[in-house]
């Protein structure tokens, strides 16, 4: 499985994006789904740097892409602070502009953009996020 270890810096986001887009194309995803994967991975990696490592240059992000006949599975691994993904509050997307408050959009977008999202955190393996996008039928 193609795997690349990136520096946990925001400057890495464009490189990570290029890597996953290449494999999303190889998996036969259409343009909208390739963008969905790019956005989900960008949000996840930003969260790793901001929340798991709590800053830039603290640790690495391992990114693996598994292309199959059904689509693409991406595994992101880090060794930062465990992240309670289920505890992130849902953003209130119906609020009028002047009452809109920040927060929660990253996880919301990851869940909306991908078909399956699994997160685990163990001392042995660190934090592992596995996200899947299935190829559109037809």
């Amino acid at each position, binding site marked *: 499985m193609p795997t690349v270890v990136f520096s946990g810096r*925001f*400057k890495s*986001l*464009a490189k990570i*994006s290029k890597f996953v887009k290449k494999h999303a194309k190889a998996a036969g995803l259409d*343009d*909208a789904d390739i*963008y969905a994967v*790019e*956005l989900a991975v*960008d*949000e996840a990696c*930003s969260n790793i*740097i*901001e929340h798991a490592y709590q800053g830039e240059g603290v640790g690495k992000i391992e990114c693996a892409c598994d292309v199959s006949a059904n689509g693409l599975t991406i595994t992101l691994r880090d060794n930062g602070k465990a992240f309670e993904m289920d505890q992130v509050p849902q*953003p*209130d*997307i*119906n*609020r009028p*502009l*002047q009452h*809109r408050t*920040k927060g929660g*959009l*990253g996880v*919301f*977008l990851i869940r*909306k953009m991908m078909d399956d999202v699994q997160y685990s955190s163990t001392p042995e393996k660190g934090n592992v996020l596995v996200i899947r996008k299935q190829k559109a039928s037809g």
Partner: protein
Amino acid sequence: MKITTTEHKRCDVVILEGKDGKKARIDTYTAPKLQEVLNGLTDSNRYNIVLDMSEVDFMSSKGLWVLTETQKKCQHLKRGELVLVNPDEKIVKSFDLVGMGDYFTTSNDREATVGAF
């Protein structure tokens, strides 16, 4: 990402461009630069802003927030508006998905938008 700002009589035009022949990305790395430019305008009491996104092919939630925060300032007390020119269809969809699509007027003609202010 290259950001060019031009002052007009009734509005300011901000053009976003990529570098080295690539399209522009607005992510956690580049969003602060855009925020700085837009804050510079609103801090100078310039609330009519035309943002040309023709060359932008990616925007993460950080970018969505920068534009939403700017729109909040512009539309406060009905003193102005941030209008998006030629946003990519995929970016518009992500705005809609997070309930931010209604906050913005979009246009496919920069000059006409400038003229409308």
